[in-house]
């Protein structure tokens, strides 16, 4: 057995009930190698690494660590073999300090105050260029700090095989760069790093090798130097796919929805949106960028009238909408479509079929006390036909459909009401590439019809391609409103981190966009 091999998986199979999550997966990761696991949602990436980190046991196959066959039955055992995992959702104790979190689960002495513990942590930090305030409580930390702490934790426990599950999803571009530097340091120290992601440019930027999973199988392992993003997408999806998002210029954009000094406070009376002002124009996609939890959700709900605002103005073509419920807005003849982030928990009723879900936005317009489902059957069939929704039937519970089909039902319903303004929140999150592109297409078509679209997104590459302007939020404040064609990712990243865009842009929204 080659001594430079850190991890070797042979014929790993895992099934959940009737679902095959992994089938005969082979994977080899060398020491000092950054290995990406790439694949669409549900391709089996997380299941695979969960077996490596001892959370699941494989139903078949072998795991070798440094050439030795092992049977991992618990995360504790995995860490004894030097396998450390940084989960997408951090596993930290909020009320503990950084130091307490680091030593939790790995207690060398009875007391936590020993000097050598701190020395050991600090020397680790120096080695890998990490930074941490040992006495800071997790609840006071930013997302970036928490992630740093997670990494220190697994390194302290002696891991030299690191698994990072979608580590960049919650970071600004600058934080991503810092993380990549740390990962490169690990590589220098001969650690093996397994990076789970679905962002291609990250794979290309930092990894040495990439294994592509599709439907639970490892379809290919290739060297980064010998592949291209296009090839990787083809491997992921299983067919050639065009990666460019169409962006259509629409000649006339008129201001339609004005937001002035919008402030929203949460239950603890903390401002989650603070003096937000912008204008939405017809025939335009206004992107919203920001780290998760910067006020995007509150903004969408305020625009649609589903949640209360504390102060500020919402003006739709001269009409004030602040304090109005969704129905009052609708009754004024103003159609605001809303595709919320939480599709099944908010936009749709998971246990109902398409017909009853269409009813959600129509029943109160109908006459009389009874609901009328007759006309909706045709609409449902129409929706299935035009958006190519795959479902066993129009009354089949929508929660049993795939993510892409669920989203099509939701967007289809909102579009069927011919909205003037369409608010979409993470509309492609969790969708496979094919479905995502169908959604981009749909949105672009609406834009061409003159609909004013708000697009809350997380992938800056997508945002910069599909949007006309981008509004950047940080901690509920607007830190920038920029032209999507003229901005760089780095500049957006700075704004997402709270650096306010310098004055002088023509895009503050008070002017009509056609001048820009």
């Amino acid at each position, binding site marked *: 057995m080659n001594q430079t091999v850190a991890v070797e998986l042979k014929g790993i199979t895992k099934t959940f009930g009737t679902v095959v999550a992994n089938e005969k997966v082979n994977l080899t990761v060398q020491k000092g190698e950054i290995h990406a696991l790439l694949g669409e949602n549900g391709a089996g990436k997380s299941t695979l690494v969960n077996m490596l980190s001892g959370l699941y046991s494989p139903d078949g196959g072998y795991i070798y660590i440094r050439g030795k066959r092992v049977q991992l039955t618990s995360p504790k055992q995995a860490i004894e073999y030097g396998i450390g995992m940084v989960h997408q959702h951090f596993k930290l104790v909020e009320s503990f300090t950084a130091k307490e979190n680091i030593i939790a689960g790995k207690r060398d002495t009875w007391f936590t105050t020993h000097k050598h513990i701190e020395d050991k942590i600090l020397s680790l930090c120096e080695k890998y260029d990490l930074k941490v305030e040992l006495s800071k409580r997790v609840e006071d930390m930013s997302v970036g700090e928490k992630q740093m702490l997670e990494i220190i934790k697994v390194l302290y426990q002696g891991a030299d095989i690191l698994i990072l599950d979608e580590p960049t999803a919650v970071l600004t571009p600058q934080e991503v760069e810092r993380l990549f530097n740390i990962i490169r340091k690990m590589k220098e120290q001969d650690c093996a790093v397994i990076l789970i992601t679905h962002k291609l440019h990250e794979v290309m930027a930092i990894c040495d090798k990439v294994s592509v999973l599709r439907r639970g199988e490892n379809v290919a392992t290739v060297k980064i130097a010998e592949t291209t993003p296009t090839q990787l997408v083809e491997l992921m999806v299983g067919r050639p796919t065009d990666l460019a998002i169409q962006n259509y210029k629409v000649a006339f954009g008129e201001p339609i929805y004005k937001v002035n000094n919008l402030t929203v406070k949460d239950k603890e009376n903390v401002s989650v949106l603070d003096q937000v002002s912008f204008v939405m124009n017809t025939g335009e996609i206004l992107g919203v960028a920001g780290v998760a939890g910067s006020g995007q959700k509150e903004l969408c709900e305020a625009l649609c009238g589903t949640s209360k605002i504390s102060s500020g103005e919402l003006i739709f073509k001269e009409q004030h909408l602040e304090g109005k419920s969704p129905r009052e807005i609708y009754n004024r003849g103003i159609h605001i479509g809303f595709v919320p982030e939480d599709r099944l928990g908010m936009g*749709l009723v998971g246990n109902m079929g398409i017909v009853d879900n269409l009813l959600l936005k129509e029943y109160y317009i109908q006459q009389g006390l009874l609901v009328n489902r007759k006309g909706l059957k045709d609409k449902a069939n129409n929706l299935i036909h035009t958006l190519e929704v795959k479902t066993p039937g129009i009354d089949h519970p929508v929660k*049993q459909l795939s993510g892409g089909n669920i989203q099509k039902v939701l967007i289809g319903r909102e579009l069927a009401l011919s909205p003037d303004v369409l608010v979409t929140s993470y509309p492609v999150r969790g969708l496979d590439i094919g479905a995502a592109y169908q959604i981009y297409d749909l949105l672009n078509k609406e834009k061409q019809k003159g609909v004013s679209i708000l697009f809350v997104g997380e992938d800056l590459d997508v945002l910069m391609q599909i949007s006309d302007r981008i509004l950047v939020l940080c901690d509920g404040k607007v830190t920038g409103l920029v032209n999507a064609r003229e901005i760089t990712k780095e500049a957006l990243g700075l704004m997402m981190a709270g650096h306010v865009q310098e004055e002088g842009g023509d895009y503050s929204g008070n002017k009509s966009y056609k001048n820009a």
Partner: protein
Amino acid sequence: MGIKVIKTPECSKRKKVWIQMGAILAALVITSLFIMAIGHNPFKVYFSMLEGALGTPYRLKETLVKVIPLLITALGIAVAFKMKFWNIGAEGQILMGAFGASYMALNFDYLPKVVVLTMMIIAGMICGGLWGLIPGYLKAQFNTNETIITLMMNYIALKWIIYLQYGPWKDPSSLGFPKVANFKDSATLPNVFGVHIGWILALILVIIIYIFLNHTKKGYEITVLGESENTARYAGIHVKNVILIAIFISGALAGLSGMIEASAVSNTLNMEVAGGMGYSAIIVAWLSGLSAPIIAIVAVLFAVLIQGGAYIQTAFQIPQSAADIIQAMILFCVLGSQFFIQYKIVFYKYTLHSEKGGHTI
């Protein structure tokens, strides 16, 4: 070998029926062992349970009288449960409904029968509805836990009735015996085909509630709200109003049961007027999957079980507790079978190190 419990994606209707039939069969088998242990022939006991509930016209009528309040209360509970408002308070709502109806019966019995009965029905439904509205309001306004509050309010209602029975409403002509005066004929529900008219009300209500939940706007709103409050808010549904309306309907139906029991069965107000019916109705509603027509069927089966259980006590001279055990065993199996609707148990061979890497079930 290993055993795993796996969540099943969705159970077909036919499979559900099979599982529940299997559960009843299992219950009968297990109960048979118990019956044999106490020295009786299980087949004879089961047969006489049926006989006791349905064997003669008189027994059949008695069983039907038990079905009526169970059915109406379960319909009410279904309305609240559809909204995932866990109304455990039907017992108290029945009592308060009986209280409201009794107030009318005792004070206005000089009016024509139709008028008195109508007033009793309205008062019963309003009292039951208002008793439900209290936890409903607390939930809508302060997001309190309705399970605890509805349950606690049952005891308040019960003590209130006991207070009336032993105190201000005690019949002076009962020679010191703590009982409320019997209703006059004008406050007693008439019989139709030998059973009081409540059965017609119950059947009408099955249809009304079915239409209400499945085909009206309010019913739709209740269902949406039960599925997800966020979705309801998103759709522009006035969440607080819907909670209040649904729980009022739920309580009002229980209150109607209370009125029927007081008027037609006990002919007076006493603390036994609900007699655990409010709790049994929860089981009926739940087993029926909150569907009105099925509630009607399950209510009949449940009443047969109760009446049959009572009959075998006298027929076989077995103690009441033994009859209760038989009832409980059947319920336990049927309710327990819900587990097999949601999960399945898989036996598998552990083949971690098989060369093929296969997985066999």
